[in-house]
């Protein structure tokens, strides 16, 4: 099988979909891998490493895709790239399917079977292919580091000859994968950490990390381990609970999300104004609209001396390990899908089925 | 009567001693300890020998003989079995 690995062109995207170690494995399995020049450079994997792994470096995306049975990248391809794929090829990448109608149509038309990585089912078995989990892990960690270095103060408690620095208070809203990692990282740095989520199972998980849980009488567990949207009444209770708690916080990390929906609004302008000067909010949900009212995706907002960071694509700012995990996920997916040396998009498969957004010339996403 | 009292005293002291001796035994030693204690209770052999060896008529001799056999099985089997169990238990730390 011929596999093409593309260089990312989206702004701020520094990751690469396959790292040399994965390429080497594919080559050992008798696949041919074509890598677009500098595909891994921004993630600190220079071309030489790919060459050492047995891939051929080609000069353009088109060259990498020419005749490829499988095209792998991180971000959705642009229109030109779709055109360059051969009929019957398989594309593996993030596709943001709920927001990419035209792209899906184009892929279907081009006869490309596209597997959307964000649709890996969240089952125990598919966990090794779960890109959302792995990238959220990096994001949760990086959110704390960025937030902490912008906070104006230290997180750990320090008793020094120049007075005692009280420990910073960190508050994590939305304790999914990213949120839990943020809790762990803030705890490591010595912060006093609290967290909030609407799924009831999360409380035990939060406490298993040594953080405290902020209670609000609102439970909203949806399907597949995800949350669902809150009723107005619940939303009011949640806002009250957060509002009471947030005043005192030095670092707030918000990661609340509902799949396919805009991020829930959980931090209001009034709450921001109630916070102490120098506090920082890191809105990890910035890209889907932000959990904070004042968040601007990709920008740093300072309001009432509170800094609100709206980072885009946080995982990409630690491109090496983010790519490492991304690549391992893709590798697990390919190992699951490749039978007898060829990639079979079996739409009956419990894992591939939900991921295959286009197949056999048709758009499958949203049909059921 | 005096003699009985003395025996009672000895019995009492030995009972207390038995209690104090077995203070904290790891579970793994429960069976060997039980077995070892059982072997000690084979001390009835002393009584059996006296009964069997005295010339008190054939009933005593027959019963005594049986008693000696029973008690001796208990004694010999008890110590041997205990030793076997403990050997198994011992081996590991020695391997180190």
């Amino acid at each position, binding site marked *: 099988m011929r596999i093409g690995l593309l260089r990312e062109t989206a702004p701020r995207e520094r990751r690469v979909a396959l790292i040399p170690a994965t390429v080497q494995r594919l080559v050992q399995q008798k696949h041919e891998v074509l890598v677009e020049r500098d595909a891994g450079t921004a993630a600190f994997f220079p071309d030489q490493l790919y060459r050492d792994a047995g891939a051929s470096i080609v000069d353009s995306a088109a060259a990498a895709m020419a005749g490829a049975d499988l095209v792998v990248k991180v971000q959705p391809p642009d229109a030109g790239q779709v055109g360059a794929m051969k009929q019957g090829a398989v594309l593996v990448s993030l596709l943001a399917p709920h927001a990419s109608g035209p792209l899906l149509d184009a892929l279907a038309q081009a006869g490309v079977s596209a597997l959307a990585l964000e649709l890996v089912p969240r089952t125990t*078995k598919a*966990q090794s292919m779960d890109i959302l989990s792995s990238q959220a892990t990096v994001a949760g960690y990086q959110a704390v580091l960025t937030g902490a270095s912008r906070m104006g103060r230290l997180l750990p408690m320090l008793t020094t000859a120049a007075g005692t620095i009280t420990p910073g208070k960190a508050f994590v809203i939305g304790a999914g994968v990213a949120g*839990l990692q943020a809790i*762990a990282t803030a705890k490591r740095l010595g912060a006093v950490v609290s967290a909030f989520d609407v799924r009831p199972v999360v409380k*035990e998980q939060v406490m*298993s*990390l*040594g953080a405290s849980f902020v209670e609000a009488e609102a439970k909203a567990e949806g399907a597949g381990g995800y949350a669902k949207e809150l009723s107005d009444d619940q939303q009011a209770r949640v806002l009250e609970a957060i509002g009471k708690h947030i005043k005192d916080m030095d670092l707030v990390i918000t990661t609340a999300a509902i799949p396919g929906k805009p991020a829930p609004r959980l931090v209001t302008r009034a709450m921001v104004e109630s916070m102490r000067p120098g506090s920082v909010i890191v809105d990890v949900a910035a890209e889907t609209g932000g959990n904070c009212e004042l968040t601007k995706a990709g920008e740093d907002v300072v309001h009432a001396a509170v800094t609100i960071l709206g980072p885009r694509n946080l995982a990409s700012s630690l491109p090496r390990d983010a790519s490492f995990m991304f690549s391992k996920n893709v590798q697990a997916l390919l190992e699951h899908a490749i039978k007898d040396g060829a990639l079979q998009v079996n739409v009956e498969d419990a894992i591939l089925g939900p991921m295959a957004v286009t197949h056999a010339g048709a758009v499958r996403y949203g049909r059921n | 009567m005096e*003699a009985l009292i003395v025996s009672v005293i000895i*019995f*009492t002291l*030995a009972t207390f*001693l*038995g209690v104090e*001796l*077995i203070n904290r035994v*790891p*579970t793994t030693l*429960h069976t060997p*300890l*039980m077995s*070892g*204690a*059982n072997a*000690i*209770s*084979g*001390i*009835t*052999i*002393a*009584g*059996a*020998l*006296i*009964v069997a*060896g*005295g010339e*008190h008529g054939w*009933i*005593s001799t027959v*019963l005594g*003989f049986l*008693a*000696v*056999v*029973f*008690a*001796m*099985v*208990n*004694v*010999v*089997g008890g*110590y041997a079995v205990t030793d076997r169990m403990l050997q198994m*238990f*011992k081996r*590991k*730390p020695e*391997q180190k």
Partner: protein
Amino acid sequence: MSHTLTQLTYLVASVLFILGLKWLSSPATAVKGNRISGFGMLIAIVVTLLDQAIVTYQVVIAGLAVGSGLGLWMARAVKMTSMPQMVALLNGLGGGASLLVGGAEFLRSELVNEQLPIDTSITIQLSVLIGAVTLTGSFIAWAKLQEVMTGKPILFAGQKAFNALLFLAVIGLSAYQVSVPESVLWPFYAVVAISLLLGVTLVIPIGGADMPVVISLLNSYSGIAAAMTGFVIRNEVLIIAGALVGSSGIILSQIMCKAMNRSLANVLFGAFGAAAGGGSTKTAEGLTVRQTSADDAAVQLAYAKSVIVVPGYGLAVAQAQHIVREMADLIEKKGGEVKYAIHPVAGRMPGHMNVLLAEANVPYDKLFDMDQINAEFERTDVCLVIGANDVVNPASRTDPGSPIYGMPILNADRAHSIIVLKRGMGAGFAGIENELFYNPKTAMLFGDAKGSLQKVVTELKAL
């Protein structure tokens, strides 16, 4: 040999028994203890043989030879796994010996029409009674363990009352026998018969799994029987050794019950209430779970050369990371090697276990991921699974219908023995049963992981 010397030698034998028992209760000295007590027995026997009371040697020698031969053969032939029933058998024979000695003394005195002092009469009755109960009780225990008869409690209506009746009858008959001056024999035979029956009826309602406790108790009885025999023939070594075994046996039974978290009364009479489960829990499908206690786990860990700890979400919930570290340090001090096997999806977030173990300062070079360590389980003495479940569930290998089928797991089930720490039989994240828990090599240590580990650590320190 002078009587004084005999008695002094008996005293020496008694001291050796005392030391023997003391040493038997600690792993480091147990072998020595058993041997020294055996040596005590040897000199007690030799001294008795040399004593003036023995006049005919043929019978005695014959009995010794037969008994030793039989005993040795039995000890050699028995399989390691059948040890408890072997002890039961031997114990029963010991009880039988007491019965016989008491009986012989009684019959002798009746025969020569000697009027026995009252205390001798009483102790004869006691040695016969206790000896007989021990004899049959032990055989029942043996039968249950050997699965010659059912291990389940055997119950019938009015059983309790029946037992009580038998007991009263025996006491009454004994009292009658002692108090009546004339030479009558039938009450004696009745006492023997009923006592033998009592041994049976007392043990049958107790479940097979509880037999070790019963044996220990019967062992204590046979010690008391020996002591009683000692009263009968006025022999101090019998009294001392018998009393030692009598009291230590009861203590040991109690320790055993405590290890199973039950009372002695519950073990002995529990079946009359509910059908007690014994040391094992049965599941719906009839599979059996073996429970263990903290001190047992501690001994296993103390003598293991290699231990792999498999932490899971339960470790995090219990916040037991620090105490795990402490335990590992102790094991390593004792010469064992401890590694941690981290499954990629253990816990509830990527790296959950790392966070915890880092907090407890577990050195990185002791952490191994699945691929690095999976081959090592089969060479591992003890795998300690702490609050993990799905990540060690063999269903992922064997059961294509399972939601985790195909997920690689840690090969905990390949270790020589497995100890699982959980609160109960709760399922993990995937919500499915785990057959590892029913593996015969697996012992479950139930309770909050932190609490259980704390107990293990305390025991480890005491070892």
